């Protein structure tokens, strides 16, 4: 059994205590998507602003545990300013780190080149399989929003 220090890294607790990019965006022009984690009752709303193929802003509202909140917070930092294909690559890479194979297209060789930065701190979640759903909630919700923006 891995220790809790693998899960609750300092940077995670920091994003949990001070989440970045919380709030809402006007829809339209932004796209809104809602996600639920049926296990723990977490609910998250992702607001996504895409302009000319680039994610120009993301905001997060809703409630959740330290893992889902910090993951959402770090996600916003990782994707704002990126092109949609770049964002999709980051999502794939992150899910790959969470040991999740995605049905919608294999991880391309490029993905491995994508850097996750702070998000690497969530690596430890893999050792706590139940929490993987917490870590990926914001990401799946982002994907929904991306699909709607297409």
């Amino acid at each position, binding site marked *: 059994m891995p220790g809790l220090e693998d899960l609750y890294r300092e940077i995670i607790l920091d994003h949990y205590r001070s989440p970045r990019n919380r709030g809402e965006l006007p829809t339209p022009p932004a796209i809104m998507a809602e996600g639920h984690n049926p296990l723990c*009752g977490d609910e998250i709303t992702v607001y996504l602003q895409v302009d000319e193929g680039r994610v120009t802003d993301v905001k997060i509202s809703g409630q959740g545990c330290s893992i889902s909140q910090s993951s959402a917070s770090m996600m916003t930092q990782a994707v704002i300013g990126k092109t949609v294909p770049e964002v999709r690559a980051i999502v794939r890479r992150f899910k790959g780190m969470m040991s999740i194979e995605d049905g919608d297209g294999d991880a391309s060789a490029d993905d491995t080149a994508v850097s996750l930065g702070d998000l690497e701190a969530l690596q430890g979640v893999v050792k706590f399989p139940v929490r993987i759903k917490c870590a990926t909630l914001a990401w799946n919700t982002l994907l929904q929003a991306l699909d709607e923006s297409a």
Partner: protein
Amino acid sequence: MSGHTLDRATIAADFPFLTRRIDGERVVYLDSANSSQKPRQVIDAMSSFAATSYAPINRSAYRMAAEATEAYEGARAKVARFINAPSADEVVFTKNATESLNLVAGSWGRANLRAGDVVVLTHMEHHANIVPWHQLAAERGIELRWIPLTPTGELDLTDLPRLLDGAKALSFTAMSNVLGTITPVAHLCRAAHDAGALAVVDACQYVPHNVTDVQAWDADLVAFSSHKMLGPTGIGVLWGRAELLDAMPPFLGGGNMISDVRLDGFTCAPVPAKFEAGTPPIIEAIGLGAAIDYLESFGMAEVRRHEAELTRYALDTLTERFGDDLTIHGPRNVEIRGGVLSFAFRDLHPHDVSQVLDERNVCVRAGHHCAKPLMRVLGVGATARASFYVYNDTADVDALADALDSATDIFGF
């Protein structure tokens, strides 16, 4: 059979899970409201039946099959006696309480409710007693009304007459799986009947922990699950008044529930067979019967006494040790509260609380407890919940409190 006192030292040998070690430490199982552990007596009854007495029931005539049928029907009789049902034929075996409640909505509901008809529920219902009615509402256009809660987590009955006015059914929990609140079942059944409505009781959390008397309640239909009362998964119960069950159309169709099948239609078998389509949970019924025998060896009054005492101890201990850092939902009065404690700890998310407790082998559930409408009423997304049963004692409550202390270290308050 009854008379033993509940005391972990005495019954420890009955529960193999108490020997389980994780990281060298014992498991503090505080999730019985979700599903209970199983005593040796239940496990052994199932194993030995499956090993040398197993046979299909109802359909074959040789002795092993006749004996298996008798054992299965014997379990039905035990259930009937356990809840003081007038007749074993009023006991229907389902797969779980959820199926039982779906049977009520799907059979009684479809046969009796039309667009605009009203069914009354409460804000503390489990999804199992909400979603089937939502499905019927979508199909039939029935209207759902909701009994709200008081600030202490009891049912607020101020408006009951108005809510029940013209209602066709009142379907409610006998005990909340989140708040622990024990509801005034007999009072509600009478109110329902006075209004001409059917009284359906979700007794999932009540039957495992209390003396149950469906006749004293004067209920019409009562649902509960085996796996929450020391019995196996895979079997639940729906009890109903004979005339009511007789009048209800069948639910699932197939073998065993028929009297005749022709190319152009079928006729039903009498109850309870009418509601038991297909091969039933035979081995599971044996296990449920053994669970009832085991519970009756203490008597349900003793089970209730034990849990009320433990709940009192837990309320006192947690309040004393954590003060305002810990918010416990639901009534403080253990007269109307079962052994279920939902709580919020500081500003920690319940999922993180349960993670930290798990590090100490303290097993609590964190989440919405299949009661999302109630979560919204409480203004929370989730709670952490500790719940007790026969095998828990004050040392488990202390372990819970100690483990909560350690959360402080990790999240650095």
